[in-house]
């Protein structure tokens, strides 16, 4: 039941930020909403309610590593899209391992 609630809240929050990204122009500004803390806003509240504040704070600490990985990922997508102009779907999915490598690299070096 908690997972279902989490999925619904996550879907609503993520969609709301995506709508803001659709509405705003220019695209460089709208792109800011692609890095909105949408999953975090949906998850951290539930984490506090079910596991307490310390648990949620630990999640937020790791989220900082995830955010650095997000920067590296988005920067790489931007560079490749601008230089080689591949399909957006192909490029953004093919670059996910960069997020994983950076996030887990930071976790091993800093967060573990």
């Amino acid at each position: 039941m908690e997972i279902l609630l989490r999925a619904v809240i996550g879907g609503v929050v993520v969609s709301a930020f995506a709508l803001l990204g659709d509405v705003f122009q220019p695209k460089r500004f709208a792109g800011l909403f692609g890095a909105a803390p949408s999953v975090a806003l949906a998850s951290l509240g539930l984490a506090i309610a079910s596991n307490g504040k310390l648990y949620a704070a630990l999640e937020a600490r790791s989220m900082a590593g995830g955010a650095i990985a997000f920067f590296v990922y988005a920067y790489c997508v931007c560079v490749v899209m601008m230089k080689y102009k591949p399909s957006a779907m192909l490029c953004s999915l093919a670059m996910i391992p960069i997020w994983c490598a950076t996030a887990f690299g930071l976790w091993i070096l800093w967060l573990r």
Partner: protein
Amino acid sequence: MKVHADFSALRRTKWYEYAIRFLFGGIVTAITGLIAKKFGPEVGGLFLAFPAIFPATATLIEKHEKQKKQRKGLNGTKRGRLAAGVDAAGAAMGAGGLLVFALIVWKLLPGRSGSMVWAAATPAWVVVAISIWAAQEKIRELQRKHAAAKSIPRLQLR
């Protein structure tokens, strides 16, 4: 270009495109919870900054820009892909705000109420993300001016 809201963009998005983003967002949020349960908050927390709907959004931007050009009788593939690249540049800048959000929640949450921490962290994300964007725009403007100033003597020589 000044920042403005174009609500007609909402009409261009199909219902299933909204559904895809709802689904992606829901699935990633649920999976993040499951990962945190199985491997602990240190690993689960990483996924709070996972590029959950970035691929879906970039694909939609490419498609919409391409359609816009095609309505004018042009191909639009290159334009669509460049627009997706520009959106990625914005997301990279927004990641700075995401980092500040995470740091505020991490440092403030243990000793304060959740709602108070949210009230500090969410505006901080907005302010930091917009400030990085504004600074970057200023740098681009200065670079354009510098390039234009450099090209004037060359034109005069000719």
